[in-house]
């Protein structure tokens, strides 16, 4: 591997670096970490951890502080917002009015009721639980798939994602990207979700096979989609632009103004705790991950 400017910078400052601050966009590999003799801490602002070489961190005894549950409420709010928009066609209705079609074209297409819908949550971590809590208030029935069944949770558990899709009207992706979840939502799962099924993704784009999903949407094999994440952001496949049953969000589900301010406090708090030898505010517990 050639020496990059980043590598040169790191090598020059290596001995003084005790901690790193990361966002989700830049991976930290074992090669990068090898250039730093004594990093004690990585603080990441992202919701996920797939950009960090976790086994290497565990091996080297590097602590990681994540975002904790900071984004869960905003993510859940947006997931619900995207779902209702797709079912009730709110974005389409708003555009209808702005184009002054209401006086001339009269009635607008009907939407679908939320109450009684079977909502399959993929990944029942803190985000999934916040989504469940909200949708229960709308009268939806919650089902879920997760790495492991959660004994304290009453919702019906499906160990197999295909079975979850068959029994759901809606799938909401709230899980981390891992080797198991990469392209977990494939053509088979989408077809099981079916012609009136809706998929919402506020997790990681690679959990869904984007090409297959687009094919299903274009052929009407699923009913609609609400998407906050995409394979090649910010370049979103243009075929999605013309679809009224698809609502797009520019990777903003986790971020409200209030949450960004809270993030700042959390990041600063974690660094201050580390440098004062106090417990981290939001430590990532390694043995829970793999």
């Amino acid at each position: 591997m050639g020496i990059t400017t980043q590598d040169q910078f790191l090598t020059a400052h290596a001995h003084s670096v005790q901690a790193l601050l990361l966002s989700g966009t830049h991976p930290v590999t074992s090669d990068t970490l090898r250039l730093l003799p004594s990093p004690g801490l990585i603080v990441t602002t992202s919701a996920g951890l797939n950009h960090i070489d976790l086994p290497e961190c565990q091996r080297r005894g590097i602590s990681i502080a994540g975002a904790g549950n900071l984004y869960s409420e905003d993510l859940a709010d947006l997931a619900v917002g995207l779902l209702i928009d797709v079912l009730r066609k709110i974005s389409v209705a708003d555009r209808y009015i702005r184009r002054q079609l209401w006086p001339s074209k009269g009635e607008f297409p009907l939407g679908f009721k939320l109450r009684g819908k079977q909502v399959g949550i993929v990944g029942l971590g803190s985000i999934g639980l916040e989504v469940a809590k909200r949708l229960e208030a709308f009268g939806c029935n919650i089902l879920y798939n997760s790495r492991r069944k959660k004994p304290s949770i009453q919702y019906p558990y499906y160990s197999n994602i295909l079975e979850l899709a068959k029994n759901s009207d809606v799938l909401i992706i709230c899980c981390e990207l891992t080797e198991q979840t990469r392209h977990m939502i494939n053509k088979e799962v989408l077809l099981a979700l079916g012609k009136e099924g809706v998929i919402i993704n506020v997790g990681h784009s690679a959990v869904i096979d984007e090409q297959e999903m687009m094919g299903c949407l274009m052929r009407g094999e699923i009913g609609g989609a609400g998407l906050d994440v995409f394979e090649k952001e910010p370049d979103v496949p243009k075929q999605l632009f013309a679809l009224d049953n698809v609502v797009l969000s520019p990777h903003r589900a986790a971020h409200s103004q209030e949450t960004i301010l809270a993030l700042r406090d959390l990041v600063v708090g974690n660094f201050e705790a580390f440098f004062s030898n106090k417990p981290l505010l939001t430590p990532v517990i390694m043995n829970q991950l793999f």
Partner: protein
Amino acid sequence: MAPHNNSYPSQHDLPNVLILKLPPSFVIFGEHFFDSAKFRFLKAYESSLPLPQFLLAHAQSVQAILSSGGAPVTADTICLLPNLRLVVTTSQGLNHIDLSECRRRGIAVAGAGTIFSADCADSVVELLIDVLRKVSAANRFVKQGLWSSQGDYPLGSKLGGKRVGIVGLGNIGSEVAKRLEAFGCSISYNSRNKKPSVPYAFYPNVGELAANCDALIICCALTDETYHLINKEVLSALGKDGVIINIARGPIVDEKELVRCLVEGEIRGAGLDVFEHEPDVPHELFALDNVVMSPHNAVFTRESFEDLRKIVVGNLEAFFSNEPLLTAVNLDDQPHFSG
């Protein structure tokens, strides 16, 4: 089509139900949507006669009217129908019916009951999420290809912790409250009367409610008292960070004043399903990204229309069988709207 069966009375023996104007249900589902073997419809809108003459021609035979929001039942109409004993409406609102005149004449009124409350509440929450988190504006941004060319879209505002003020804590208002509590909002309300069994803070007037909330949600009926209830003072009390959501009736809000506040940035944003002069919407709103609009369809789901069909047919069949109505309105409790 109503089933053809020799044990039923022939079409000519069936009692008449008058329909003044084409209801939205017929536009969407066809004119047999409310068919029953127990009554037939007399469609005034299909006649070439002007309405008063049509009514005079059929006066004696009309015992019931099927009304919708766009087909007012006025004192003038009522007075031409001496045998009228029931008005069934397909709408949630009752402001298009002269309730005082119905009460005076002993005419029963049957409404939509609670069938629309869930859909209405869902629409309220969606409009609020959309305005605060910029859902449809961001969707527009992405679909115009601007995310690639212009970069990130501005951040929205979190729902959790917002103080929500509900104007009118009836069935719909209660369903709204239940949903928004799950988002971490705190609920307060103004209503004609304080409700003792309800855990939310009560404000005796709308101005005080507006001054103490971040999102004002209009869920009340349109009456003489609530006409232009949301006026300049209330909007000013709501303030620059405040949002207003209206799924009730356009005339509850002073629309000119609302538009001015939105254009001049005196409130944060608005989610509107209803307008003062539908289907005309003030053009100034079209350029605003902090406004989300829908064409008076907060209750328009397939499932709700099926529920409506059962309620309308059920009420009319009960009436003609001398059985209790399914969703009778208590006229003693209803304030009037002069229109």
